[in-house]
């Protein structure tokens, strides 16, 4: 006699293969990075506060950093040639007679220098601190912008 047994938990709605695979890939990546002593976000990770994301499009470079609790007046950004300098301080909340139950939010000074991959136009650089996220928009210098090269036909 042949008995066919179905797995008890066979319910398609709970099974999301793509998601499961994605999750597994992420875990594997992380594991390899840990073994190799690298940070999950790549070998370029600097380990200096604040953590930055650097991205680009055709005309600008963008630098973003999460700086919750840093007031705009406590932040200083400067550019010298192709080095961007971010320094500042995150101050502690001073409350008279408070007793702490938990204190996980760090305070202190920071200073980070970033070497920019392109020449930029420092005159037109703008920065914004919104909801604790700093965004710096650095327009690329004319020489660094991508150019389309026409092909002559004869």
């Amino acid at each position: 006699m042949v008995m066919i047994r179905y797995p008890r938990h066979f319910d398609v709605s709970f099974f999301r293969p793509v998601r499961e695979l994605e999750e597994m890939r992420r875990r594997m990546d992380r594991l390899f990075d840990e073994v190799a002593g690298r940070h999950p976000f790549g070998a370029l990770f600097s380990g200096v506060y604040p953590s930055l994301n650097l991205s680009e499009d055709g005309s600008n470079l963008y630098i973003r950093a999460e700086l919750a609790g840093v007031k705009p007046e406590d932040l200083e950004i400067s550019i010298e040639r192709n080095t961007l300098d971010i320094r500042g301080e995150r101050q502690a909340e001073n409350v008279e007679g408070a007793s702490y139950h938990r204190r996980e939010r760090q305070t202190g000074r920071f200073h980070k220098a970033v070497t920019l991959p392109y020449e930029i136009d420092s005159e037109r650089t703008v920065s914004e601190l919104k909801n604790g996220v700093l965004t710096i928009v650095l327009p690329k210098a004319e020489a660094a912008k991508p150019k389309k090269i026409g092909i002559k036909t004869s």
Partner: protein
Amino acid sequence: MTMTEKSLQVQEKKELQGRAESTRTVPVYVPAVDIFETTNDMTVMVDMPGVAEQSVSIDLNNDELTISGTMAEEAKTETMLLQEYQSGDYYRQFNVSRAIDRNQIEASISNGVLKIVLPKAEIAKPRKIDIKTT
């Protein structure tokens, strides 16, 4: 004013474990908090960079305080060159004592830090106990 000479260190963001899965595709982080108490109230400060005022939800159910924040997702046409952090949503739960005056809770957000002030109910305020001498 005293200057803090301490320099800030990178704190790796902690991903939330063991909660029902989110239907969004962004990671959910456990935000760093400070909780302190004064004579009249209890204050919770939560780091939630990237979360706008209208995307924060604070819920006090019995003695369970739930804080969650949703980051704004924008369609980006940029190419990432270097990524040192990921952004995502935030979620954290606390048990607070029942002796909170629920009608007086106030919350505000500034520079990506959420501040919740939970005033203590009259009965919970500290009283000095006199010691009688005979």
